[in-house]
């Protein structure tokens, strides 16, 4: 690794994608992620790649489909309303078993909502998002460096399981600057995959990139195959972090930006003699159900904190499965929770249930 440089989150995720081998980017402007297409428009030509500003998010994601179908490492990024528009193409990309990288710098919704950071696209990101029976692999980084590190491995994971990988950030992660380091070397060139449509050269049989299976038994088989690959990802790719969780009587669960505020809340709670800890999912799809289930057994209460009216909390309840009461503290509309408010709310729970 070379020395650390101060990087804005949006530019860091773009540079990390380039280091990971991304050579093609198709996007459309939307706040708060505009630095990603802007960075790619000057960076990709330097490395022999191409940037296209599409006419819409719908077109951009379908360009991703075409490029991914040729075996190229390709990326798009957007923010919540734009990701909604991309869901058509994301469903087709998943249905056609194509790897790609999608970044969502989440802003408040629904509708046009606002441009301030939010976590209200959790359901959309972790439940497939578009129509049909599929999942994405979704990473929820909590720092600019972690976003870089996850992006560096994203294409390998997407190609291993042949499904899109999403980086689920938010306006804070995209806009803030932190010191980051990148690997010195670019990812090595790799041969085109054996399914890629690049022309039926040297007499090989023509190939097809497709998501249509009109016979129910064939679609059944295909969806089972997709589910099996996601099962494998669930077994191999789940990531999470625990902070002061070993002796925690009150276990906070939070991801991304909110998890950083929770760390500060935990410090305040520990100062008051309350044994609080943090469980932070890094993959939110596949979700670390088993690890959280195990951890919740030693806690007296669980508190989910998120910037939404309650989405992550559903997965927490699935994992905890009644082993401890699951509480919820949420802010919405682009409001970031304050550590003191979380600590206050948590202390109230402790008063009722932990003591």
């Amino acid at each position, binding site marked *: 690794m070379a020395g650390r440089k101060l990087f804005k989150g949006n530019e860091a995720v773009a540079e990390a994608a380039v280091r990971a081998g991304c*050579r*093609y980017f*198709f996007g459309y402007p939307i706040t708060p992620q505009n630095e990603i297409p802007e960075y790619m428009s000057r960076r990709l030509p330097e490395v022999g790649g*191409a940037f*296209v500003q*599409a*006419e*819409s998010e*719908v*077109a*951009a994601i*379908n*360009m*991703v*489909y*075409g*490029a*991914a*179908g*040729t075996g*190229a490492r*390709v990326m798009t990024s957007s923010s919540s309303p734009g990701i909604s528009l991309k869901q*058509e*193409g994301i469903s*087709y990309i998943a249905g*056609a078993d194509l790897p790609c990288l999608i970044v969502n710098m989440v802003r408040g919704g629904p509708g046009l909502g606002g441009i301030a950071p939010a976590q209200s696209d959790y359901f959309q990101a972790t439940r497939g998002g578009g129509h049909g029976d599929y999942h994405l692999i979704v990473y929820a980084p909590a720092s600019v460096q972690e976003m870089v590190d996850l992006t560096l491995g994203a294409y390998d994971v997407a190609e291993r399981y042949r499904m899109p990988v999403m980086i689920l950030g938010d306006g804070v992660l995209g806009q803030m600057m932190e010191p980051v380091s990148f690997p010195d070397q670019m990812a090595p060139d790799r041969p085109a995959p054996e399914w890629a*449509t*690049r*022309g*039926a*050269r*040297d*007499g090989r049989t*023509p*190939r*097809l*990139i*497709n*998501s*249509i299976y009109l016979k129910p038994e064939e679609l059944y088989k295909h969806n089972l195959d997709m589910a099996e690959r996601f099962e494998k990802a669930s077994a191999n790719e789940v990531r999470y972090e625990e902070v002061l969780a070993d002796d925690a009587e009150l276990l906070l669960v939070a991801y991304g930006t909110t998890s950083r505020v929770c760390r500060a809340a935990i410090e305040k709670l520990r100062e008051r003699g309350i044994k609080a800890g943090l469980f932070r999912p890094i993959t939110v799809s596949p979700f670390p159900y088993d690890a959280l289930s195990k951890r919740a057994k030693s806690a007296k209460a669980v508190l989910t904190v998120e910037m939404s009216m309650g989405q992550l909390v559903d997965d927490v309840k699935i994992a905890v499965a009644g082993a401890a009461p699951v509480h919820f503290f949420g802010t919405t509309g682009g409001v970031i929770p304050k550590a003191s408010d979380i600590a206050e709310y948590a202390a109230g729970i402790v008063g009722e249930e932990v003591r």
Partner: protein
Amino acid sequence: MKQVYSVPKSLRPVSTHYCPGCTHGIIHKLVAETIDELGVRDRAIGVASVGCSVFSYDYFDCDFQQAAHGRAPAVATGIRRTVPDAVVFTYQGDGDLASIGTAEIVHAAMRSENITVVFVNNAIYGMTGGQMAPTTMVGQRTTTSPEGRIKGLAGEPIRVSEMLATIPGATYVARVSTTSPAHIAKAKRAIKKAFEVQLAGGGFSLVECLSTCPTNWGMSPVEAMEWVDKNMIPYYPLGEFRTPEGGQTNG
């Protein structure tokens, strides 16, 4: 004995799902012959659309991608940018290209993407059972215009070739018919020219092929051909609307 005709190599020796009298078969053959004659089958990548031609990948013997409804030009753009020496073409119907896919076709032309678009206009949604299309003629009965297309409610048909010809990036735009041997010969020349424009790196090319749908029009194949000549050609004039040389020809 000298062989004067054979099935093009770029067309698979299979039966199609197209209805009797449908002109998709003729247009497939013209595209396949073009690919053969230009010797580009091994670097051709087709993009199938949604509509009756959804399964065109089963008939063309080259690499293919199946696109979402209307998005074929965007998918083709993704392919074009990643495989520089590929010969990229889309095969789209009028419901696909002239309705849900208007943004994608306009902007592919604006960028002058170096792709070729084969646009089949039969004035109706065929695959879904004969609904009104943007290209449906005023007065034409469909399952969603039971009294015929009413101008005051549904407007008048969109002329895609004329619209695209106003875009500087549209290098070659032509409209042809498939209703007579003479028309088919002209259609072949236009399709070949469109692919040649791409091979020369000339940018966006499109050939609009007036086509029939005997099944959903409720006509015999012969009646359907006559209906194109009588009703469609006067509204959708044939000819080249944009050429690399800058000329226009009609008729």
